[in-house]
């Protein structure tokens, strides 16, 4: 009898009291992520998921993360966000621009849940926005490209002609031009964020037009693979793509969301979270670089590192006057630095870039 009773008590301890003891400890902060692509895209969504994994590594048992991948930016996003909110997540990161209307709607319905929207511009008391100053990274790869090109033609695979992408083109062009006055940019608009076949075609077209260095604002590794095959150079986008172009990759602009995610989740734990608008650059650790290729001469490496450090320190801004717009009209005066509002709405090329922005 006693044995049985002891067993029962033990079982009760394990089942009931165990659960109670756990409840007495701090409940883990539950963090949800919704991704537009598969986590295996080795680009945009992959990097956000790396940020999620960094949360688990940093906080261990104190966080519980979950995600839904490949959620189209349409009717489905609102449902997924709502279900995640209903499932008891404390904070939800919506990691694509196209989720904006959905996340705004769901944030209204769940005032106690905190929402974070990447690259968006609509905020609420429980809806923050965040993005990175990728143009700082573009400045660095522009410098390297300007030095490395032999044909003086740099190919650029654009996604959509939105300010984010145009800003990147301008930043890279200005930097390349500053070290190589003869440099020319050829730009192809692919109207997609992720379409390996289309991106590969765009890369081939650019190479046929004489490009010997490729840059991209699309997410797949296709262009890197083509560059490797054809023996030219390219820059990784969002993620380190060295595995796909060991000889081709000069460096990569890496989206490092981990510092931001860790900071925000820490704020949720501390109860200090508030709705903010974050736009972090190299200085905040949100924009990083893959190892510089040893194909880059030492002095160019030095030049690139100096630029990185200067931007991190805030002493260098990629958009510092004098800069004219494409049509020759003045934009920034000597020494003038672009303000964020203009950068966020940028819809013009700077002087020297050929072609028109599709409107």
């Amino acid at each position, binding site marked *: 009898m006693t044995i049985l009773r002891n067993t029962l008590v033990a079982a009760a301890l394990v089942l009931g009291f165990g659960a109670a003891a756990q409840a007495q400890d701090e409940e883990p902060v539950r963090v949800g992520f919704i991704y537009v692509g598969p986590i295996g895209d080795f680009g945009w969504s992959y990097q956000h998921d790396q940020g999620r994994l960094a949360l688990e590594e940093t906080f261990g048992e104190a966080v519980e993360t*979950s995600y839904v*991948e490949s959620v189209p930016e349409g*009717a489905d996003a*609102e449902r*997924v966000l709502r279900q*995640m909110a209903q499932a008891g997540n404390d904070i939800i990161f919506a990691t694509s621009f196209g989720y904006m*209307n959905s996340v705004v709607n769901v944030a209204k319905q769940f005032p106690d849940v905190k929402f974070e929207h990447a690259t968006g511009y609509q905020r609420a008391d429980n809806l923050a926005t965040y993005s990175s100053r990728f143009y700082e990274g573009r400045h660095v790869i522009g410098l390297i490209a300007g030095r490395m090109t032999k044909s003086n033609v740099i190919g650029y695979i654009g996604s959509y002609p939105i300010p984010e992408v145009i800003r990147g083109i301008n930043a890279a062009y200005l930097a390349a031009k500053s070290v190589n006055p003869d440099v020319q940019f050829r730009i192809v608009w692919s*109207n997609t964020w992720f379409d390996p076949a289309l991106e590969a075609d765009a890369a081939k077209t650019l190479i046929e037009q004489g490009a010997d260095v490729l840059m991209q604002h699309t997410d797949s590794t296709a262009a890197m693979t083509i560059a490797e095959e054809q023996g030219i150079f390219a820059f990784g986008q969002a993620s380190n793509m060295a595995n796909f172009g060991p000889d081709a990759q000069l460096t990569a602009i890496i989206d490092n969301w981990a510092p931001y995610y860790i900071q925000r989740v820490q704020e949720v734990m501390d109860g200090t979270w508030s709705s903010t608008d974050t736009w972090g650059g190299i200085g905040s650790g949100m924009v990083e670089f893959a190892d510089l290729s040893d194909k880059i001469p030492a002095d160019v490496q030095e030049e690139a590192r100096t630029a990185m450090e200067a931007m991190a320190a805030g002493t260098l801004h990629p958009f510092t006057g004098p800069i004219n717009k494409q049509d020759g009209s003045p934009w920034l005066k000597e020494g003038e630095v672009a303000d964020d509002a203009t950068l966020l709405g940028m819809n013009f090329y700077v002087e020297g870039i050929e072609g028109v*922005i599709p*409107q």
Partner: protein
Amino acid sequence: MLRLEPRTSASPLVEAITPVGAVIATMVAGGCLFALLGKNPFEAIHMIFVAPLLDPYSRSEMLIKATPLVLIALGLSFGFRAGVWNIGAEGQYVMGGLAGSAVALAFWNVEGAWLLPLMVLAGMAGGCLWAMIPAVLKVRFNANEILVSLMLVYVAGLFLSAMVSGPLKDPQGFNFPQSRLFHDSARLPVLLEGSRVHVGVLVALAAVVLAQVLLHRHMFGFNVRLLGQAPRAAAFSGVNANRLTVICLALSGSLAGLAGIFEVAGPIGQLQPSLPVGYGFTAIIVAFLGRLSPIGILLAGLVMALTYIGGETAQFALGIPKAAISVFQGMLLFFLLAADLLTRYRIARIRRGVV
């Protein structure tokens, strides 16, 4: 050696229960897949097939998700019965959404109860006209409608992309490729407070009833069935095969277009390049899962919607990857086709030496 022999008679009871059998087989095989991934198979199947039914919000979302599937599949089912293979419903869906949206945006901020019906008509016309391309090419030049309709899906997708990056782009949208948000007069009324269930759900239900009547109580339905089962007999009895081909494509195109404008004016509320998410292709599965019968399609559409919504929940609640969910959905069609084959044919052993 094995070979397939047609069975002399397939029992109607067996035919009716094979979809259920396919669903059960999918659960078993899917369960094994989830177990291999280190997930609790019972929990996963419960999450996908049962949990959404217990939650009111998930139930309402199921209706929304099933609406385009059911509408498109209903249209396709007539053609499939008659041997007209419209594989391009996805493109007709896009063109319907586009045409209806163009009307909404042309009258942006103009209030009026007439706007929504006009958008719906434009949507149906858009889908119908897009389906007329393969219809005309088929009837005039005997071009294969499978190829033509399928390739027009990509044309439609690119056309949508051009429109939302061009004439239909939101002028205040920072050059983002999407339209303005529709104003209230251009949005489908919501039926249930706090959900997104819209009028389109009722229209889909009405379409099921209409299709049932058309198929079984109308000469058109009879001719469709006749043409599919016995084309020569149909020709002798005076059925004009060309005319029927055109009507079947018009019907499926219109319903796909209707689904498109319902999706834009319902849950989305603006035109986006990401409008096509595969409903036109999934509806083919739904049509066959529902045995090409309207009631069957309704049930199949709901089951399909259930697996989508449950699949999302399983992703974040259990950490099952999206790819595994897609494999799971693919299994459903695979088992259905296999079960189908085995009800109509039996596997016979060929003895050596016997010719």
